[in-house]
């Protein structure tokens, strides 16, 4: 099967507010698909629909060919979810939480015990396996929730802001594990507002805002498509007025950033030549000169702004 997730015309409203507005996308089997958007964009609502927690007003969604509306049990059997809010049972131990999830997915006793032991070791929680989750730090809880999600060996794993609020070490461990399970064949649906995370992890990324998909492509293609966001960053031995450089042909915009000036252009090579000419004619020495591709963050902000205007 080529598509792990297929979403068609999905809509969800809460009263007057449309949280998800006729969205369409497809996640290929085996890829890490990023779902990027600001707070309140519709990311969590989409995940809740795809994991069968809430029902949409209209549209369809299928996981590995199983409709989440018509065959919810079959669809849920092959997925796992790491929700945004930590929600392991705090009055159960880490081990009891894992055994409960195993029983709810019908994992045989011996297999769930073996998997639980292995996962707790992998996430450095084995020594705390008989402790109540109540006493766990946020990072430990998040690791436990990821263990719970991986216990069932899901074909598709939904992660809603999995590293939000975590320390650097825990966040890195979780990212490494996501990559590892993806290499082993798990399709990952990753909702995040962390551009760097999406950039580092995802094969493709959808950008959602106000419940609508603004763009879907690989992070690299998204950056390249936004040619107007390419820039040249220059610094001289003397202070130069920004408006002087903004008059250079092919420069769309000039901005002072610290001791440097950033010139936005869709033709960086032409601007570099003109900058060198300008420096010669004014008796200036160029101290540094860099061309910059747009970051995913630049693309994201641009798309969100365009979307607002639409």
């Amino acid at each position, binding site marked *: 099967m080529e598509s792990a997730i297929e979403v068609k015309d999905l809509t969800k409203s809460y009263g007057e507010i449309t949280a998800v507005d006729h969205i369409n996308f497809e996640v290929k089997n085996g890829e890490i698909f990023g779902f990027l958007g600001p707070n309140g964009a519709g990311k969590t609502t989409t995940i809740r629909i795809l994991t*069968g927690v809430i029902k949409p007003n209209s549209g369809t969604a299928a996981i590995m060919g199983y409709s989440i509306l018509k065959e919810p049990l079959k669809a849920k059997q092959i997925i796992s979810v790491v929700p945004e*809010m930590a*929600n392991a049972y705090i*009055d159960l131990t880490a081990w009891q939480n894992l055994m409960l*999830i195993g029983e*709810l997915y019908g994992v045989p006793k011996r297999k769930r015990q073996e998997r639980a032991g292995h996962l707790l070791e992998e996430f450095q929680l084995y020594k705390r396996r008989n402790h109540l989750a109540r006493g766990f730090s946020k990072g430990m809880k998040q690791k436990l929730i990821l263990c719970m999600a991986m216990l069932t060996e899901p074909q598709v794993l939904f992660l809603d802001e999995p590293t939000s609020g975590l320390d650097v070490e825990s966040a890195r461990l979780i990212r490494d594990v996501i990559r590892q399970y993806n290499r082993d064949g798990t399709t990952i649906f990753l909702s995040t507002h962390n551009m760097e995370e999406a950039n580092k992890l995802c094969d493709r990324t959808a950008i959602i805002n106000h419940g609508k998909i603004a763009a879907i492509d690989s992070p690299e293609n998204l950056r390249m498509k936004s040619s107007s966001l390419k820039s040249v960053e220059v610094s001289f031995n003397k202070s130069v007025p920004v408006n002087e450089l903004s008059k250079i042909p092919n420069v769309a915009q000039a901005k002072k950033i610290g001791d440097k000036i950033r010139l936005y252009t869709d033709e960086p090579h032409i601007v570099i030549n003109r900058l060198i000419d300008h420096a010669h004619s004014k008796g200036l020495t160029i101290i540094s000169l860099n061309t910059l591709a747009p970051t995913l963050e630049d693309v994201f902000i641009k798309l969100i702004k365009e979307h607002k205007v639409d």
Partner: protein
Amino acid sequence: MVEDVFLEQLKRAFAIAKKDLRIYYRRGPVVIFGLIMPFFLFLAFFIGREMQIEQLFKGLLGMTVFFSCMSIGPAIVPFEARSRTLERLVSTPVSIWAIFIGDVTASFLYGILISVVPLVIGLVLGVNISHSLVLCLGVILAAFCFASFGVLLSAYPPTDVPSTVMMISNLVKFPLVFISGIFMSIHGWGRILASISPLTYFTDLVNYCTQGNSYYSVFVDFAALIGFTLIFLILAIKIHEKTLPERLS
């Protein structure tokens, strides 16, 4: 195939019941409204009155089965909605009906376990139980009926505040205690009112088993308890299914 799916769902419901029992039996509202409050209510009625031991036993057993079976059920859903574990449960491959059967089973098992105490007390005090099998069946059936009623009481309003649900459930429970003939026999027009309470039929069964007299026949008592159980269970599942999206949003 369908039977396999059904049995698998029942197994998963039992896993939920195990989890509920582990988590909720010692929660404050469960202990206060399920054990302490009915015990003091029992004492308030019986201390200083000259009563037959059978009358005392009927009151203690009725109160225990009724309150203990209805103590965990109303607490589970609001607690889980608040801690967002309900969302996790709903995302697992467990049917909504199986989730609530699990909750009812937990309340039932808790109630049965607690009900052993008055049964033992009754035997130690020398209560003459002439129909022990009928009494055991009656306790089991009544426990399941009250457990279903408890889960039904948490269905509406779809709140995540446990105290709100406990307050509403007490508002329903206490009037039922007074119209069901637990403390004293009910006559005249009171019988009509009593017939709408499932507790009446359990009390009647205990009367039959300990004193040999009952208002209804044993068959009617059992039929009424089965009927109430089915109504409570179906209503609980249907209303929870309807209110779940609001609870999760």
